[in-house]
């Protein structure tokens, strides 16, 4: 992280697969960067 990137953040990764019940599984990473 860098200066100026403070505040709440949510990053997400879409995992696409051949699982018919969930072809797209989203994984989330949440944090609050303090300056």
């Amino acid at each position, binding site marked *: *992280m*860098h*200066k100026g*990137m*403070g*505040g*709440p*953040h*949510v*990053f*997400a*990764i*879409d*995992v*696409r*697969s*051949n*699982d*018919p*019940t*969930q072809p797209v*599984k*989203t*994984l*989330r*990473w*949440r*944090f*609050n*960067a*303090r*300056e």
Partner: protein
Amino acid sequence: MKMRHVRAPFVLAASLLAAATASCAPAAPAVTAPRPPTPAVRGAPALAFDTLAVDMGTVPQDQMGVQTFVVMNRGDRPLHVGPTTIDVEQGCATAKTVEQATDIQPGDLVLLPIMFSRHTETGPHRLRVKVPSNDPLKPMTALSLRFTVSGDAPPPAAGPRLQVDKDMIDIGTVPSDWPMYEQFTLRNVGTAPLVLDKALVVRVEEGC
């Protein structure tokens, strides 16, 4: 009882430095591994973590994944860490960690994995990971892990079935110049080969 064939899990690991650099500062060089910030303490070792508390949300009963803390030495003397122990404050005891003590040189970091096997209880869990060190200001640091084990039995898995050890992680408030590292464990709990799309892209849903 039949032996169960266990397929090797796929681990999706990421350094937040790499993701943040790509999304917020495209002119900066890409970083592929977490790096510690500049040493901030003179004349002693200085223990720091990427975060002290993690909320993993709801996890499956057969989680079998890993939660990782980044351990840093921000001083200018060698840091001795460990042996690490885990206390169960709520729920069942199915987590293990590295038992051996280790030395971290000034400016270096190591990863401290907390490994989960199958949970024997459902409901809320709270673990306290105790990390002793020779940091004169932090002879004992307690890390907190929270999660809720889902009681839903998995449906009969005909065909490929993707299972993740956690689909959300909240590491709370962290310094903006701190290195961070996270990994997700992906497993196929179905009866047919699971094919993952190789194009994994980090999206920014909030922040920059």
